[in-house]
């Protein structure tokens, strides 16, 4: 853990879906890094390519999707990094990485567990796939894992089926399965979206505690900025398959540079503030990735768009520091103009 190389470095990733209606550029040149022991949150509206980015890391993109460009450098130890895009998605090396080195937790915990087998069966299976343990040892480890994620009476729960547990319990089981083989990176793909609010908070707390305990890195995908504020070290804002802004959590929340980040923050409802006023929203919808606008993908919805510039040429990639960058023409020439075009009203 002494070296400074990031655990995961995605560089220029492009994952496109070749459908009959045309090519959908779901992920179109995403670059981000996950440092060791940190939590990186990927935020954006539905359909902006967050989940596809996450799945690309583990080679889990469904047909007709394909990674067509880019590198995903994975460096768990001191050795040379592995480019995950070059691995055969059905190969043995990738299989060992999945669940062993990089684990994933999904959006719908109930549907992510097979109803035909007990949760113990699925948990023990994962343990034995990645660790050289016998049946008894694996079972003991499974009980220990369930206890670690806060499941009461784990010995009995081992023989329960997913449909006998609540959504929150199922997500705890999924987390136990994900962490069973001590992975270096946990990818959480909207793990709390399908849960009710109190359960959401408990699962977030659990993930934060487990991360502090194990020192693993977390790539957390969400559209909930409240969750981001709570757990993120670094934030990646995505829009239509591209990263529009990257930065530390404080920088993103207190000094957002991209108009889209700004608009996202402006549209968070707040208690007390603006009672009786309409909630600020971002006008329009995310266009379908197959008819992406020319130039900056956000310009049709952007209040600060400059005619003849934003709708013509791709926005420049402006780098402010190692983990801080924005893709917007407003910041060209290094001019620090952040804050001039906030969405008014909602920010106290």
């Amino acid at each position: 853990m002494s070296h400074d190389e990031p655990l995961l470095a995605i560089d220029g990733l492009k994952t496109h879906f070749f459908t009959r209606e045309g090519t959908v550029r779901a992920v179109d040149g995403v670059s981000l890094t996950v440092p060791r022991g940190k939590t990186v949150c990927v935020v954006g509206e539905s359909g902006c390519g967050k989940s596809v980015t996450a799945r690309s890391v583990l080679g889990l993109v469904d047909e007709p999707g394909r990674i067509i460009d880019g590198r995903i450098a994975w460096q768990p130890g001191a050795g040379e990094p592995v480019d995950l895009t070059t691995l055969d998605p059905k190969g043995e090396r990738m299989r060992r990485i999945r669940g062993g080195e990089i684990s994933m937790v999904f959006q719908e915990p109930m549907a992510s567990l097979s109803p035909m087998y007990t949760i113990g069966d699925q948990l023990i299976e994962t343990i034995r796939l990645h660790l050289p343990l016998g049946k008894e040892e694996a079972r003991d480890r499974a009980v220990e894992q369930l206890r670690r994620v806060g499941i009461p009476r784990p010995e009995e729960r081992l023989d329960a089926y997913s449909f006998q547990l609540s959504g929150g319990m199922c997500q705890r089981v999924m987390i136990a399965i994900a962490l069973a083989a001590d992975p270096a990176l946990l990818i959480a793909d909207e793990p709390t979206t399908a849960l009710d609010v109190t359960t959401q908070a408990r699962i977030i707390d659990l993930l934060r505690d487990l991360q502090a305990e194990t020192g693993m890195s977390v790539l957390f995908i969400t559209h909930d900025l409240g969750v981001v504020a709570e757990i993120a070290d670094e934030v990646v804002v995505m829009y239509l398959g591209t990263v529009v802004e990257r930065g530390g959590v404080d920088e993103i929340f207190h000094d957002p540079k991209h108009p889209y980040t700004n608009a996202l923050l402006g549209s968070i409802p707040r208690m007390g503030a603006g009672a009786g006023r309409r909630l600020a929203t971002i006008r329009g919808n995310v266009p379908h990735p197959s008819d992406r606008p020319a130039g900056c993908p956000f310009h049709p919805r952007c209040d600060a768009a400059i005619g003849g510039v934003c709708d013509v040429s791709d926005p420049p990639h402006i780098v402010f520091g190692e983990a801080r960058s924005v893709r917007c023409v407003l910041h060209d020439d290094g001019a620090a103009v952040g804050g001039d075009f906030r969405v008014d009203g909602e920010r106290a």
Partner: protein
Amino acid sequence: MLTFIARRCLFMVPTLVAISLVAFAIIQLPPGDYLTTMVSRLESEGQSVDQAMLDGLRERYGLGQPLHEQYLKWISGILLHGDFGQSFEYGTSVAGLIGDRLPLSILLTVTTLLATWIMAFPVGLYSAVRQYSAGDYIATTLGFLGLAIPNFMIALGLMYVMHTVFGYSVGGLFSPEFRDAAWSLAKVGDLMAHLWIPMVVLGTAGTAGLIRILRANLLDEVRKPYVMAARARGVPERRLVLKYPLRVAMNPFVSTVGWVLPALISGEVIVASVLNLPTTGPLLLGALQSQDMYLAGSIILVVSVLTVIGTLLSDILLAWLDPRVRLGYR
């Protein structure tokens, strides 16, 4: 699991009673009773009717008594003595007639079912896992042909080809020299040589249907999140498909076991007639045509009871296969 089986067995009792009532009603349907039919028949043949014998029969079947007493007499005869009554068409006991043919029917059914599964299972699995491959298209084409061509047509075609090209007799389940012979190894061999033709004929449609069902179910299942989740935790691809989605997709195989029994015993009358099979289907057809009501009613009773038993078996299998059924989750 035991409570589940016990509960299912209890549910069977009223069903069986209802079935026996229906079968009894069918026996009673033709005008007049068994004895009037017999008397008129004997008289038309110019024989005298022995009054003492008539009285004996009347006593035995409780004729002339109220319907519910007749029913009780009939059903207790079946339950206590295995006496299904007399077939006046064949002049022997119904139990003996059914006893001759039922084992062959069951043998044909079970082998056809097994053959159907053995063919449908790998092909359906392949078609789903390699969707839109050449093999999938071939299986799909053959499957639709098998579904669309009526079974008796396949039977006729197969008989014609086997006879003209190979000079091979395909009617029945035995060669003429073995038909009335006692059971021996040679007779079993002869049976096996004949059995495959009805098996192929009766199995084609079922196989084709099951291939399509398995393919569609499996394609639905492999897109479910739990498959992605299992892949994401490093389960090898082959094991993944066989362990997770396939088990769910097997559901229609198991839940249709119960229907196969009656379909093959009574539903394939035409094929059995074309192929001259000594099974219960043609027997039922003949009994209905000649109003041999004890025989017809008894076959219907036996087939219905087999259906209920088959359904019970498939329910138990399904409960074993799918914990959601076993644990009463809907």
